[in-house]
């Protein structure tokens, strides 16, 4: 029986329940000392002078690392330490001391003179005539004919006049695309909805703050850090430290959550490594929750406007979308562009125009957060689709079924195609599981002070990449060793993806060993564990390596027992054919004797050099399967989750309880049912937090954050979610993955968020408040007919 599709207990679970699992802060080294960071108290400043003499003179202080001692990135890149901090909480320097208390006291003894610089926390404030720029070089980044360019963009006062009419100002964008004839598509519409919609920025806040420990031994750096993607974090960190990859050992066996904030290592890790090198002692840098809020990344917020045209029957004819992205001070996230493409994908309008601009602000740095761009836009637009459905008298499920794409649909500026889309199947499976027919009747029902709202959120996201390597060895103990360079976020992909190889060979899971999380253990070139890539990319890579291994086993059996290679079959640890049968253990021994390609002494030409180095180190230990994923991958791979929610809204208090939730996926073949349920539910719960409670509050006068802890940023607790949640899956194989699997990490966040924003609008009688998070005060103001507690485009409030 195939392992794919079965529930398994992942190989790391006993370590997790006994406390033996070691996360970065759990490692110790002989002579280990502690570091603390000096963080900027200002949103934008320049260091005029720093006097560290009092700190260095303190007993127990071992050294200080300054910005000029760490690699400085070119603008608009981010460096681990800086003398021009661009947000409150940005690290300026680090101190190492024999105890953490001494290090903290030393930070207090540093005399620092900062020159305040202009700052902004609101993109529109920066776009206004004469408005401040978050960076000295400008307020946006464009990719034009001259390549990457930092620019200062200001709109005119007339651009801002729309504010008085309750509409987002929309000056000249830096990004624009369209398809179809927008004007005539709006002419075709029988009904138009239009609104200004605000989506907040929020911190990822994984449970494990990004602490790290490092030491050097004989010129080699050993770094223990939290990462989503071991092999890629290794490569990235070696690059940051200007080290040959062979001189860095990166250990990250367990990652206490990342959600996009720890994709390939954090800049902060290089502080630990460089400070350890400077003082020649192992250094532990513990990151507090408070610091995590600043340096731990956040999701970009949107100030946006949309107009959507509908035919009488519910078909969407035209969409005009404008997004201003609030981006923090560094880099450039593609969230706003992705949101445009996803809008076109999920609603399939005859014509669409997207316009957008990303603006730097002096707020914590942004990074991809689970479903970047998609998770924001679906929560913003789905309540508007409800509004149109209500006004047109169409069932809300029917309007979505009508507009979603199928496998032949095209989308986005380049009219890209999909590998396949089975969204209607997923909608139907979810509606059935949830009981849409009955539960949609609860809409508007009043019970005491509580009104019931029912919502749906359709959420697509990219579900897989390709072209990575698989690396397998069967050793003379007869076991299959699956080497994985992806991380261990608890999605179980580091275990589950190996099942594609085991299935090719007909092996039981007990005969498989997964090797992961430590780059000294010879890991192959891998995808980042982000963007729902791994379940797709690494089932493919392991399938490829499994086929290579199977071929070698067959050839070894034929050479040993006679007959042709392809007349041999592999099953349950044996290769059997016309000449009899040998065990995998015997074949592994034989491979060592034969050498060459069988034991990894001769390697394929097309594998990545990282894989070549790892395979070379593993050669001669058994029979090796090693291959690049060269399977066809025609079209974009998208997965979908449709969220169905019931909420109870208390009209006296404005409180909202989510009492029922079902998530239904189109993610190809179900790789691991229980883990799929966990991804759908867990992502949706993150979406609940986004829809309801998680936000930033920044003082507009001083640029100082107030919501810098968990209780002020309020992720959902166990009492904020339904007592029991359900899931379903369409289960249609993806045509462009030989094992039919698509990734599923991203789309549930948008589904959960959108189902809740949709359900709250439903409970309010179809009123779209067009803003997240829908906190109790916002809802209560609406219920009581008061002015909302915020201005139209106001953010971080």
């Amino acid at each position, binding site marked *: 029986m195939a392992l794919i599709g079965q529930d398994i207990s992942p190989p790391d679970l006993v370590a997790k329940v006994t406390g033996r699992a070691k996360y970065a*802060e759990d490692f110790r080294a002989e002579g280990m000392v502690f570091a603390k960071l000096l963080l900027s108290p200002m949103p934008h400043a320049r260091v005029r002078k720093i006097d560290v003499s009092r700190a260095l003179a303190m007993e127990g202080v071992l050294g200080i690392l300054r910005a000029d001692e760490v690699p400085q990135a070119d603008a608009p890149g981010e460096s681990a330490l800086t003398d021009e901090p661009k947000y409150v909480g940005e690290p300026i320097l680090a101190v190492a001391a024999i105890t953490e208390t001494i290090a903290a006291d030393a930070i207090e003894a540093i005399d620092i003179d900062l020159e305040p610089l202009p700052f902004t926390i609101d993109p529109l404030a920066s776009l206004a005539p004469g408005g401040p720029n978050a960076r000295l070089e400008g307020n946006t980044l464009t990719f034009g004919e001259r390549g990457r360019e930092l620019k200062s963009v200001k709109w005119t006062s007339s651009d801002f006049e729309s504010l008085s009419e309750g509409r987002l100002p929309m000056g000249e964008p830096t990004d624009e695309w369209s398809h179809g004839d927008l004007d005539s598509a709006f002419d075709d519409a029988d009904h138009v909805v239009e609104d200004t919609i605000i989506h907040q920025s929020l911190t990822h806040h994984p449970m494990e703050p990004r602490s790290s420990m490092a030491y050097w031994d004989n010129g080699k750096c050993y770094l223990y850090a939290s990462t989503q993607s071991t092999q890629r974090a290794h490569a990235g960190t070696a690059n940051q430290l200007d080290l040959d990859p062979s001189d860095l050992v990166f250990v990250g066996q367990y990652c206490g959550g990342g959600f996009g904030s720890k994709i390939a290592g954090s800049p902060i890790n290089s502080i630990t490594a460089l400070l350890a090198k400077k003082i020649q002692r192992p250094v532990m840098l513990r990151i507090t929750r408070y610091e995590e809020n600043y340096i731990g990344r956040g999701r970009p917020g949107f100030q946006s406007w949309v107009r959507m045209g509908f035919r009488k029957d519910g078909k969407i004819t035209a969409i005009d979308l404008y997004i201003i992205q609030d981006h923090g001070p560094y880099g450039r996230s593609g969230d706003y562009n992705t949101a445009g493409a996803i809008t076109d994908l999920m609603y399939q309008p005859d014509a669409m125009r997207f316009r957008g601009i990303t603006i730097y602000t002096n707020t914590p740095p942004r990074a991809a957060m689970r479903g970047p761009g998609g998770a924001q836009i679906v929560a913003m637009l789905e309540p508007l689709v409800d509004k149109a459905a209500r006004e047109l008298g169409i069932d809300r499920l029917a309007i979505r079924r009508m507009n979603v794409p199928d496998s032949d649909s095209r989308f986005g500026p380049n009219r890209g195609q999909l590998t396949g889309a089975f969204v209607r199947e997923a909608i139907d499976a979810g509606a059935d599981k949830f009981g849409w027919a009955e539960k949609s009747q609860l809409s508007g029902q009043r019970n005491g002070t509580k009104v019931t709202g029912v919502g749906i959120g359709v959420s697509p996201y990219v579900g897989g990449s390709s072209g990575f390597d698989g690396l397998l060895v069967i050793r003379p103990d007869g076991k299959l060793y699956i080497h994985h360079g992806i991380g261990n976020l608890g999605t179980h992909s580091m275990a589950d993806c190996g099942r594609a190889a085991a299935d090719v060979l007909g092996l039981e899971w007990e005969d498989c060993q997964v090797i992961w999380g430590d780059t000294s253990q010879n890991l192959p070139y891998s995808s980042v564990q982000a963007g729902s890539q791994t379940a797709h990319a690494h089932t493919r890579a392991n399938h490829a390596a499994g086929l290579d291994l199977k071929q070698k086993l067959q050839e070894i059996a034929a050479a040993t027992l006679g007959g042709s290679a392809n007349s041999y079959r592999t099953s349950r640890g044996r290769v059997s054919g016309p000449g009899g049968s040998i065990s995998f253990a015997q074949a592994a021994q034989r491979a060592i004797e034969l050498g060459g390609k069988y034991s990894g002494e001769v390697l394929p030409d097309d594998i990545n050099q990282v894989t070549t180095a790892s395979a070379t180190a593993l050669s001669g230990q058994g029979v090796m399967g090693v291959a690049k994923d060269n399977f066809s991958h025609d079209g974009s791979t998208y997965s979908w989750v449709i969220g169905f929610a019931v909420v109870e809204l208390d009209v006296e208090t404005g409180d909202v309880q989510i009492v029922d939730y079902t998530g239904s996926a189109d993610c190809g073949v179900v790789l691991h049912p229980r883990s799929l349920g966990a991804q759908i539910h867990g992502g949706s719960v993150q979406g609940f937090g986004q829809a309801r409670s998680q936000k930033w509050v920044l003082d507009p006068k001083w640029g100082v954050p107030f919501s810098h802890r968990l209780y002020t940023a309020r992720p959902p607790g166990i009492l904020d979610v339904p007592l029991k949640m359900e899931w379903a899956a369409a289960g249609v194989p993806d045509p462009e993955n030989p094992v039919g699997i698509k990734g599923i990490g991203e789309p549930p966040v948008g589904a959960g968020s959108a189902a809740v924003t949709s359900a709250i609008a439903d409970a309010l009688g179809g009123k779209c408040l067009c803003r997240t998070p829908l906190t109790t005060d916002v809802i209560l103001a609406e219920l009581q007919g008061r002015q909302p507690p915020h201005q139209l485009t106001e953010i971080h409030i």
Partner: protein
Amino acid sequence: MSGVETPVASTTSGHSRRTFIKGVVATGAAVSSSNYLFRASEGLSASERVRSTLPQLVTLSVNGQSRSVDILPQETLAMTLRYKLGLTGTKLGCDRAECGACTVIIDGVTHYSCSVLTKTVRDRAITTIEGLESPDGTLHPVQQAVVDEGGFQCAFCAPGFIMSMVALTNDHSNPTREEAAQALSGNLCRCGDYNKILNSAMRAAEYARRTV
């Protein structure tokens, strides 16, 4: 005044460092990493300050064993467990009683070990995640239930949740799902795996009933 105008008006004027810091202090949000560590009070005399920062040898009862350890007066139990006793299973997620990752059981009651001073638990029975397994390696019924349900994702919160589940199953032989949720509401899971965590808790209660 619109939300746009406010920051424009206030940020173009420029501030001196002095007014800036005054403003920040007034809002109570100054950034200082040492705010997060216990330290000797400024008001103490020199001799008192020395005394208050000297380590003191105490004996703790941890997982049924008597452990002697040098502690500082301001030291939290989480730090003692993790940095003095090698018990790194207890996690620090926030260090401020917000997340529950550091939950341990003291005399049968769950506590956030980040918010318990070690010197206050000298005569108390402390149980951590490492103390649940039998010496022969048999998992505690709660641990077994989590394994059988495939509970948790990143699992950084797992040790804290599991300690809360142990306290729950010790106190309630047959909790409802709602009672289980109430008992676990002091623990945060950012992966949002609450459905599977509750499944694990209900199975744990079932296993605990069988072993009684």
